[in-house]
């Protein structure tokens, strides 16, 4: 700790940070533009000037840029000094000379850092009366809008896009006062993280294009803290609503999970909530009623549920609460996990390794702090994009440390560090079936068949000392690679091993576990991260249930009368023929879902379920972190949370297990009580009766407008606002105006800080955790109490070497960030970026053998059923394999790896 004197007052601050961070952490308002907590300092904008004094006697002092000045003991500075504040005002004045008169038509207005800083410095009158510089804008794809006139040349965009996220297609062009930030020519920004530019840019150069379609100011939205449903990482988001439709997703800072950023699928994949395909009304097949009320539906279902044999099929994309209530409704022995065969196996294995193994699974920010990375069969940018961004940071650790030692600079001195490290990267090894977007930062990228990748993993574990059966038949190249990986991992201080569902291969998970355990046995704090297919796969697996295949058997054997399917499209869980066959034999199929899908077409009863924006619930991410998401707005019509529908079904059928359950807290309490693995999830957020100063926490900012006019076209008498009985958040603007508990911050706002930069005010220290801890609770901790290896034996047997089978192709999954996920693809922007028609990826040799070329059609038989695909050639793919984009609409195949016969 160091003592610094600011304007005559002494403060204890952390050494090694810069003065700007220190001032902001102390709550002192100091304007800045080019500095960003995640990007570090470059001292480009000259906005954060303060006066520094030599000693007590020095009255003159000198101006310094606080972001470039390390904290030193006994430093004397003045923020309020007249010369310093005049300087800061002057700088804003200059920045504004070319800034257009646009605020009224600018999407940033109301959440604009430039507006905030202008007010903060006191610059209020324009002294410049000459002409303004203008630029032509570019089309940047469906996600971002470009308005270059507003640029203040802080360089944050390129520093994020190029330096932080590794984008290639955006840069700064031209010179002097003509610098231009954009692409070399118009076109879609390729990076998976481009959407963050809307938050990184301190003004309105880059703004959210999907928000523009239904533009609403920040102060006019009803917000709720939520969790992204796009993949298994569980990034924290803020969802905003106005006039009954979801308008925007923005980052909700979580110092352990996603930090300041989100991927584009998470940020832009929300519009399915407003989709015309939403199920909004109750439907009962062959019903004679003109309109079906909830009571009618419940009475109809009462007979079905009490009379016959009922099973329930859960869903990895539904909340823990909904799955739990379904499980309790139908009984543990009638509850099936709605996952594919492969996903079920992978999730079971991953949970076993994480729960019983001695190695810790890291949070995303811990992963970003790793200094050596081994990725076994995972195309992170397509399966878990934000973890890919974490890996990008991880490979910078070693060279950053070297640069800091060699050049005597600090980590936040971004320009100096990058200059010293040039384009060196730390050890990172990526083994995958085909090239990935991260290969460019890899020390070595190797492409092979899934089993061969697992074999290399096992061989690495063996070199590191794991008792693995000796693997003999590696090629010379592979042997060298194994040695190189083993050396790098043993040299690292915090090695990270990543595997997951990307190849659908269990052996690679076992190999990853072995490698991490071997490192652990060497005494290293190794980390092991598994990606999961969906947002609650791990939670559902922890809840436990029977396999989906056995549900099929039970129905086909006639043991079942009614099947209740929870938020699940069974056509994504089994291939079309099985699903058709299964659904044909279901006497009654009750579906609770929010988007009309193939399963809904076959349902006999359709209950409209709330999407994540209309529900409260809990998700468990790939780290085993349980996180709560809150309802954003009151659902319209018959839409209700799935768990509420199921509770009502429980009540009407007199279910003993669901007695006395009515609200969210009742359900979470029951989960925590009945399933010890979920202990503590009832305390993720304060309970529904939580009040601060007797008040709830408002979902709406205090400037929320239009309350007496929004509904006036329907009825001039305002309706009573919806009441939230489930949580301590209110749907109105009335309530406690101070800082809410970190797990239920609906939006970031602070007096004088309207933009997202106000996050500074909610953190313990800049870039640290939120004031009362980062939200979420880890449910899985390593089991390291026995000697060496926890409670789980080593996996000793590597799989056999992959041998192509004559006349067959081993179909392996290929994932796409845009398109593979079920819900986000119902968003126009995401659909535009998706690869479109299903294809099959072949090695050129195979293509030659089967006499097909690019764009030709190839017919394959999978399990005796023919499928036709368009051929794509990929030389990196191993011979005898075929990449298939599972999850893409219209593919028909739900499950790979699978053998396809030509």
């Amino acid at each position, binding site marked *: 700790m160091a003592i610094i004197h600011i304007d005559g007052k002494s403060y204890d601050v952390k050494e090694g940070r810069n003065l700007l961070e220190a001032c902001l952490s102390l709550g002192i308002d100091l304007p800045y533009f080019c500095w960003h907590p995640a990007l570090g300092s470059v001292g480009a904008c000259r906005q954060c000037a303060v006066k520094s004094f030599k000693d007590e006697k020095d009255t003159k002092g000198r101006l310094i840029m606080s972001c470039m000045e390390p904290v030193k003991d006994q430093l004397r500075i003045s923020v309020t000094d007249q010369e310093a504040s005049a300087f800061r005002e002057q700088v804003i004045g200059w920045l504004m000379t070319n800034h257009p008169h646009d605020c009224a038509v600018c999407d940033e207005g109301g959440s604009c850092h430039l507006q905030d800083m202008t007010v903060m410095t006191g610059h209020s009158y324009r002294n410049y009366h000459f002409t303004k510089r203008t630029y032509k*804008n570019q089309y940047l794809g469906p996600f971002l809008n470009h308005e270059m006139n507003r640029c203040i040349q802080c360089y944050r965009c390129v520093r994020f896009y190029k330096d932080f996220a590794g984008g290639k297609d955006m840069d700064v062009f031209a010179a002097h006062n003509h610098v231009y930030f954009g692409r070399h020519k118009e076109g879609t920004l390729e990076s998976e993280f481009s959407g963050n530019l809307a938050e990184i840019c301190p003004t309105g150069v880059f703004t959210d294009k999907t928000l523009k379609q239904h533009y609403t100011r920040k102060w006019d939205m009803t917000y709720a803290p939520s969790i992204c449903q796009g993949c298994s990482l569980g990034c924290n988001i803020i969802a905003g609503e106005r006039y009954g439709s979801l308008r925007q997703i923005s980052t909700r800072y979580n110092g352990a999970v996603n930090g300041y950023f989100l991927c584009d699928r998470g940020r832009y994949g929300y519009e399915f909530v407003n989709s015309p395909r939403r199920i909004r009304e109750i439907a009962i097949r062959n019903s004679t009623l003109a309109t079906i009320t909830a009571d009618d539906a419940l009475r109809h279902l009462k007979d079905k549920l009490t009379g016959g044999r009922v099973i329930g099929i859960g869903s990895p994309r539904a909340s823990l609460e909904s799955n739990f209530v379904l499980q309790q409704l139908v009984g543990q022995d009638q509850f099936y996990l709605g996952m594919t065969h492969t996903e079920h196996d992978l999730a079971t294995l991953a949970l076993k390794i994480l729960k019983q193994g001695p190695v810790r699974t890291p949070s995303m920010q811990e992963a970003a702090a790793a200094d050596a990375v081994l990725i076994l069969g995972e195309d992170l940018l397509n399966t878990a994009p934000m973890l890919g961004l974490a890996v990008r940071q991880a490979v910078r650790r070693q060279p950053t440390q070297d640069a800091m030692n060699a050049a005597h600079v600090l980590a936040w001195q971004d320009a100096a560090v990058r200059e010293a490290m040039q384009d060196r990267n730390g050890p990172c090894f990526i083994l995958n079936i085909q090239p990935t977007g991260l290969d460019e930062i890899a020390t070595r990228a190797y492409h092979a068949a899934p089993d061969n990748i697992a074999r290399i993993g096992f061989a690495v574990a063996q070199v590191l000392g794991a008792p693995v059966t000796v693997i003999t038949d590696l090629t010379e190249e592979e042997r060298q690679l194994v040695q190189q990986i083993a050396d790098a991992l043993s040299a690292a201080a915090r090695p990270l091993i990543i595997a997951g569902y990307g190849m659908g291969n269990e052996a690679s998970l076992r190999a990853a576990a072995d490698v991490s355990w071997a490192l652990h046995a060497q005494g290293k704090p190794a980390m092991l991260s598994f990606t999961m297919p969906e947002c609650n796969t791990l939670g559902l697996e922890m809840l436990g249930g029977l396999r989906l295949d056995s549900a099929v058997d039970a129905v086909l054997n006639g043991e079942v009368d009614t099947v209740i399917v929870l938020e699940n499209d069974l056509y994504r869980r089994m291939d079309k023929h099985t699903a058709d066959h299964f659904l044909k034999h279901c006497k009654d199929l009750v579906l609770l879902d929010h988007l009309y899908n193939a399963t809904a077409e076959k349902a006999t009863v359709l209950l409209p379920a709330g999407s994540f924006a209309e529900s409260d619930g809990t998700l468990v991410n790939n780290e085993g972190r349980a996180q709560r998401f809150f309802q954003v707005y009151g659902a319209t019509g018959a839409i209700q949370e799935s768990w509420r529908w199921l509770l009502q079904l429980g009540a009407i059928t007199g279910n003993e297990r669901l007695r006395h359950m009515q609200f969210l807290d009742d359900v979470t309490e029951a989960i925590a009580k009945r399933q010890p693995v979920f202990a503590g999830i009832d305390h993720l957020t304060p309970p529904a009766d939580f009040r601060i100063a007797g008040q709830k926490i408002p979902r709406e900012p205090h400037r929320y407008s239009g309350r007496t006019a929004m509904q006036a076209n329907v009825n001039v008498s305002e309706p009573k606002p919806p009441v939230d009985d489930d949580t301590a958040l209110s749907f109105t603007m009335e309530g406690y105006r101070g800082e809410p508990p970190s797990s239920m911050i609906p939006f970031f706002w602070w007096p004088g800080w309207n933009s997202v930069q106000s996050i500074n005010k909610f953190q313990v220290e800049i870039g640290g955790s939120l004031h009362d801890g980062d939200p979420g609770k880890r449910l899985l901790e390593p089991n390291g109490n026995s000697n060496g290896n926890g409670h789980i034996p080593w996996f000793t047997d590597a799989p056999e070497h992959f041998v192509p089978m004559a006349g067959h192709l081993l179909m392996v999954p290929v994932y796409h960030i845009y398109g593979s996920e079920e819900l986000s693809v119902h968003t126009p922007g995401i659909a535009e970026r998706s690869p479109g028609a299903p294809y099959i990826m072949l090695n050129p040799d195979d293509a030659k053998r089967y006499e097909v070329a690019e764009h030709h059609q190839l017919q394959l038989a999978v399990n005796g059923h023919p499928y036709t695909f368009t051929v794509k050639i990929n030389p990196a793919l191993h011979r005898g394999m075929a990449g298939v984009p599972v999850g893409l609409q219209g593919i028909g195949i739900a499950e790979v790896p699978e053998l396809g016969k030509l």
Partner: protein
Amino acid sequence: MFSLLRSMWLVFLHMFHKRETYQYPEEKAPLPARWRGRIALTRDPDGGERCVGCYLCAAACPVDCISLQATEDEHGRRYPEFFRINFSRCIFCGFCEEACPTYAIQLLPDFEMAEYNRQNLVYEKENLLINSQGKYPGYNYYKVAGMAIGGKDKGEAEREEPPVDIKSLLP
């Protein structure tokens, strides 16, 4: 006694004063130009809608009786998709006019808005939009803003340089 007589005398004199009472509705009171009455949406000198849907009037409104939705035409010009004022709530404070950056929303010297049915006091855009520039003639927001709209490209606004040629190396 004297004060009583004085008062009576003064009252008597008022018989010969000018009348303060207007015989409304036959006779209308002359209202000052800045009278805060009926709210209207005005047009710019070219006849285009002045309102750009910036939401500032709605935010400024102390009774929250303005609600609107901004949208954009194919050339990037912003306008309100709907614009609704609930006059049964409006207190005619004029904050909306004060907040408006484009002189679009204006309070006019007219107070004759009474209705028997409260629902009729909900005015939509078609009821609010007038074919006039109102109190501030000559102002055209898009002529000073940097956004390109149909008929005005980048660099064509007042006091703007032509767009930068980023490929040029000249100083």
